[in-house]
């Protein structure tokens, strides 16, 4: 063999082959699109073995029941602020079978949300999203979000007190997004101030030392550069104005139907192109579920409540059952943080399948995922019970539920550690330290927006040991997901090592 050939072989052998972009798209996106599954229609055999795989077809069925009954309600409903409430009364009292159609619309929608939630949990427990099936999880999650938005926009249409004030709260919290940037700026200022205090030379304009010292933040200028009015614009687009009025009803009415219609078209095109069965259960079971919805409508007729009054908020005021936990959370924690958490929860659920990358499919072999799911469910249940029974104490409760949530996740991390041989102890210690800080951070009311800088720094970041608690809490949720990745994908398993 000549030297040239030898050299060439050497070059070939050390050349690193980078994946080409079309390769990446084929492997990452196309492979997942090929596995797509809307309503468990690809699990034809599993439906017969495992009862939980019936959730997909039932999800489709409850959705269709809701759309069909909704179409009938549209014939009598009048979407104006003056007549909406009365027309609901007419549907309920005067139209033949109107109460049944309305009841089935309401309970069908509730059933759809229950099916979506249970199916999401099934997908986590049975690891349905593994093997390049993450998009299926997303489909179910977006259907749940569709259910939430339709539920919210749907109950405003009744124009009763509960609807009015729940919409008010829902449409107001995005406004706090405008303060995320300012919060970050304050955090930056805190750090810079500490550095200046420790002797960093600085040419920044600063407050005289006798007034507290530190760099000067020009609030108006900051607002101009950091605040893009995302929150305010979202609010106005949602409501069609700065207050709930006729424009809001019109907008909610159109979106309430548009989203389901668009979804229906997509689903029908999908089933048309692949010739799969929409409902792969015996129809007797389908009729049983429809009968159950109808029975619910007969036994617990849908309520109308009192007509909306923009001047009076009634004292025990609740939202629909699926938002109760969030509603309770808004009582506990300050609004900017609550807004961030409201956005982080769906983000966390959305990316969870991508963090859970081990080959294990048994839920108890993935303890962190198991415990995070349990933590979410317990929090939602406990918060809902607290708000229904009205037994919460918003001043003293937070440490208990923060610590409880952290401990459940910590159990998951501990179980995960037992399974794997290769664990960096310091990483574990670091995680628990952060969790401990989270517990100590005592989320409580602390009004601070729009204060002068020295007050902000004094009262928010260094007062009574609660410094930076916001940022620790924000980080905590991401940390939980990071832990999943950290402990479940690294290192050889104990069982494999011992067998050798």
């Amino acid at each position, binding site marked *: 063999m000549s030297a040239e050939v030898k050299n060439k072989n050497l070059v070939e052998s050390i050349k690193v082959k980078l994946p080409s972009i079309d390769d990446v798209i084929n492997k990452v996106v196309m492979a997942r699109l090929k596995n797509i599954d809307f309503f468990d229609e690809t699990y034809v055999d599993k439906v017969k073995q495992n009862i939980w795989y019936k959730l997909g077809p039932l999800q489709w069925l409850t959705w269709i029941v809701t759309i069909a009954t909704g179409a009938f309600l549209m014939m009598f409903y009048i979407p104006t602020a003056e007549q909406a409430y009365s027309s609901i009364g007419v549907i309920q009292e005067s139209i033949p079978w109107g109460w049944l159609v309305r009841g089935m619309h309401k309970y069908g929608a509730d059933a759809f949300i229950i099916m979506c939630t249970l199916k999401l949990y099934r997908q986590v427990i049975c690891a349905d999203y593994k093997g390049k099936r993450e998009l299926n999880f997303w489909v179910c999650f977006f259907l749940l979000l569709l259910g939430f938005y339709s539920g919210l926009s749907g109950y405003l249409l009744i124009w009763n007190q509960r609807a009015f004030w729940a919409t008010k709260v829902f449409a107001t919290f995005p406004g706090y997004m405008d303060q995320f940037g300012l919060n970050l700026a304050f955090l930056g200022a805190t750090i810079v101030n500490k550095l200046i205090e420790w002797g960093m030379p600085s040419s920044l304009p600063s407050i005289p030392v006798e007034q507290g010292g530190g760099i000067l933040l020009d609030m108006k200028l900051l607002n101009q550069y950091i605040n893009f009015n995302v929150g305010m614009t979202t609010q106005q687009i949602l409501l069609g104005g700065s*207050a709930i009025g006729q424009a809001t009803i019109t907008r909610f009415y159109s979106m309430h139907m548009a989203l389901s219609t668009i979804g229906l078209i997509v689903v029908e095109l999908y089933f048309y192109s692949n010739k799969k069965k929409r409902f792969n259960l015996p129809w007797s079971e389908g009729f049983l579920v429809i009968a159950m919805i109808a029975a619910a409508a007969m036994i617990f007729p849908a309520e109308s409540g009192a007509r909306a009054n923009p001047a009076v908020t009634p004292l025990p005021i609740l939202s629909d059952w699926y938002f109760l936990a969030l509603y309770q959370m808004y009582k506990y924690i300050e609004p900017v943080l609550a807004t961030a958490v409201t956005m982080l929860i769906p983000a966390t659920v959305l990316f969870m399948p991508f963090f859970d990358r081990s080959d294990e499919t048994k839920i108890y072999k993935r303890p962190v995922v198991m415990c995070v799911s349990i933590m979410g469910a317990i929090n939602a249940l406990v918060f809902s019970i607290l708000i229904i029974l009205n037994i919460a104490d918003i001043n003293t409760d937070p440490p208990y539920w923060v610590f409880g949530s952290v401990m459940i996740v910590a159990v998951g991390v501990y179980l995960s550690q037992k399974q794997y041989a290769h664990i960096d102890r310091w990483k574990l210690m670091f995680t628990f330290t952060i969790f401990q800080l989270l517990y100590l951070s005592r989320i409580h009311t602390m*009004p601070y927006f729009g204060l002068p800088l020295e007050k902000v720094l004094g009262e928010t970041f260094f007062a009574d040991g609660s410094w930076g608690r916001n940022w620790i809490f924000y980080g905590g949720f991401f940390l939980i997901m990071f832990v999943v990745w950290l402990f479940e994908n690294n290192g050889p398993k104990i069982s494999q090592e011992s067998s050798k």
Partner: protein
Amino acid sequence: MNFDRRDFVKGILAIPVVGTIAAVFASPFVRYLKPSSGPTATAEIFKRPDKPSPVKEISFDINEFAGTWDFKYFMFQESNKEYTSVGEQIKTIPGVVVRTPDLEGYPNFVVFSRVCPHLGCVFNYVPVEAEVAAGYNYTPPPGQKVFACPCHLSVYDPMQLDTKGRGKVVSGPAPRSPFKFIFKVEDGRIFISSLESGGIS
């Protein structure tokens, strides 16, 4: 389905074209969704005959508030109009006047907008301490009268100050004290002219 290099190049070439079209269409679309901030040019036949009544200054006789902690609710019409699909719309803001004990450097009245600075519900003046303890998750010290919001249980004390003035948050998640009406006391009457800028409606 297969995605090859040719498709990828095609896709790359499409980005500027699609991006331009998206930008051209997205901006008027967002503008369409946003409520209009000025009067809309509408033909005469579409205009609504019944205009909302003009903004009026609200005034009360001071004698209506003879005793300490006497109060009165009122509705205030905001000066800026909104333009909607059904014509003009003037927001009404629920407000409250309360006669308070002396507080150094402040008048004997608080005039608050009743719109909660937390998430926009309408809060109440709750003079009965037992009611606050039962309904709003806060037990005020004896003699302390408070404002309290039914939605998320924020409680405001008019005799304590934060940086925005009277009505410090003593319980609950609200980020600041209530928004205040600008008022003056003249000739035995209290005149309420406008609302502090900013805030949730």
